[in-house]
């Protein structure tokens, strides 16, 4: 709305200032480019150029010695990529294991942080409660702290003699050795119903060189502690987004539905949730984009261990390049990861763009909501 009035004013008094401006246009061109020059140089030199360089390196077998741009570096074409998908070997097994781990990680982190964030926002938004701003800050605080420092704290919490196991012992549960336990959670669940070894149908080859049994392992116990940490740190940020979304729910609408005799659940289900749909979409896609990038926590807490069950593509690409000195392979993994993340980003931007062009209709629909419920 604000922009509409601004442009209206602009066109109303349009002509004379524009003519005067034409005289200083050249100044503005020079100044404009000068003003953006530092940012262009820095982002170009340390973001765009490196991406191009890394793409070149991903087509070679550079080992970190000397410059990757000399003729001595062996050019291997797409080999670093095919190695990840079509050739049976350690590279593919590690890469697919990291993809599996990250899929389970995403499958738990994204829904968990979204539900927790929404729940916290609803409680903090409750008009009847006092001291909400304190709790809002408390929930948000972990999001602003250093991921490394927080990982150190969680290493202690999940240590063998740590706080989490002490708490579990208090409840009569013998906690696991969190960071040494590579058993998959789904395997553990199957174990409780007596399925300890893979059934015949699952030992065989699944896609991309991992057996079905391996694909279906679930996140390992060690991964669960990283998942807990991440849900705990990110929920606060998403809670704030939901809070902003909740402020768009008109109070009158809520009151109207109370008078109509709607139960709390009905109000949440048919009034609040539909109005929060755009925010929920944003939170879900930001979550998807973010959770494919998990790196710091893995580096500090587990380095991919135990038994590679906390290996993620981001960490694997780092390790392949900087520990195994196979920069070509590491760069190739980065680009595959880049592609995965960009797909989610494009989906998000597309949907948001459609939503923006939909704005007038949304206003109309919003008014219809009370009648429908």
């Amino acid at each position: 709305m604000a922009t509409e009035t601004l442009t209206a004013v602009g066109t109303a008094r349009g002509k004379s200032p524009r003519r005067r401006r034409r005289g200083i246009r050249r100044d503005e061109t020079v100044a404009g480019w000068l003003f953006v020059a530092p940012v262009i140089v820095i982002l170009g030199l340390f973001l765009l150029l490196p991406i191009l360089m890394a793409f070149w390196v991903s087509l070679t077998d550079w080992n970190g010695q000397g410059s990757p741009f000399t003729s001595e570096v062996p050019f291997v074409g797409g080999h670093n990529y095919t190695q990840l998908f079509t050739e049976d070997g350690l590279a593919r097994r590690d890469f697919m294991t990291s993809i599996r781990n990250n899929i389970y990680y995403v499958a738990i982190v994204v829904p968990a942080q979204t539900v927790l964030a929404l729940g916290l926002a609803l409680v903090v938004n409750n008009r009847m409660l006092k001291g909400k701003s304190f709790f809002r800050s408390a929930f948000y605080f972990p999001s602003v702290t250093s991921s490394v420092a927080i990982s150190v704290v969680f290493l202690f919490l999940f240590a063998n003699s740590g706080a989490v196991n002490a708490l579990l012992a208090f409840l009569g549960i013998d906690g696991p050795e969190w960071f040494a336990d590579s058993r998959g959670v789904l395997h553990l669940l199957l174990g409780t119903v007596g399925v300890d070894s893979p059934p015949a149908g699952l030992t065989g080859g699944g896609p991309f060189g991992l057996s079905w049994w391996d694909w279906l392992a679930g996140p390992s116990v060690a991964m669960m502690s990283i998942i807990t940490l991440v849900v705990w740190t990110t929920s606060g940020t998403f809670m704030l987004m939901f809070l902003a979304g909740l402020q768009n729910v008109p109070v009158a609408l809520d009151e109207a539905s109370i008078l109509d005799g709607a139960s709390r659940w009905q109000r949440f289900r048919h009034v609040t949730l539909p109005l929060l749909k755009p925010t929920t979409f944003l939170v879900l896609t930001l979550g998807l984009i973010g959770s494919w990038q998990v790196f710091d926590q893995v580096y500090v807490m587990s380095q991919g261990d135990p038994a590679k069950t906390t290996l993620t593509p981001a960490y694997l690409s780092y390790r392949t390049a900087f520990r195994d000195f196979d920069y070509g392979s590491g760069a190739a993994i980065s680009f595959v990861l880049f592609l995965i993340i960009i797909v989610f980003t494009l989906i998000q931007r597309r949907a948001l763009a459609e939503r923006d062009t939909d704005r007038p209709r949304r206003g109309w629909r919003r008014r219809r909501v009370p009648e429908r419920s």
Partner: protein
Amino acid sequence: MAVLTDRPPAAAPARRDQRVARTLATRFLGYATLIFFGLVFLYPFVIQIGNALKTEPDAAANPLSPIPDPLTLAGFERIFAGTNFPLWLGNSLLVTVLVTIGRVFFDSLAGYALARLRFRGRSGLFAAVIAVLAVPGVVLLIPKFLVLNQLGIYNSYAGLVVPLLADAAGVFIMKQFFESIPLSVEEAARIDGASIFRTFWSVVLPMAKPALITLTILSFQGSWNEFPHSLVSVQDPDLFTLPRGLADLVSGSLGKGTQYPLKLGAALLATIPVAIIFVVFQRYFVRDANDGSDKG
């Protein structure tokens, strides 16, 4: 209201009691939830502070207890005597100050140009900024190393600082803010003959204080906590920043119960500056998160 008067009067008091009871129940449940999650989100920090002040056997035996018995500063003494912590702290301060100054200055310059100056290529540049926002940081680890290596600034302060001196998100924030300032004031300055830079510097920037504070805080927090960049830009332990030093201190031990008071203490010291800024400038943090949702 209309609904209420339609009801038979006899039913009203019973309904009201019911409603009061429900309100009380809601409140009780609400506070219970708040306190439960308050503990979930804050107790880890309480444990961290408590255990940083414990002896090692005490931390291993009573990890849940926030009260050190006996209370000792041995962990902190060893942080300063036995590790390179003071050096990391110095490096972190230097990097954070330089990066924050650079980002605030360069991002607002570019944000202003993209918001107000008319020049060929402006919309293309803005589209590029938006595109850059989508590039995920973790896929840049190897690329950044390559370029730093090629430019000969790998393993140097320049390598730590220069690549972080501008960021697309900051440019975006500043551009959005400058667009919300009324045009008339700068037009008056320009008509009075002030140069473009002068108008920007002495007329527009002072009006942009809230956005500048937001950007300062975000840059400070971002560069103070920055870990992956320091991982691929330096190797020399003398150039480690706090997160890098901290990661070095704990990695490899893989959760084994060694030296926890020391590690927790070091992590605590690394958290304090951001915690202070969070408490003082909280509303700017909150504003940023809300801007994120507006953007979307």
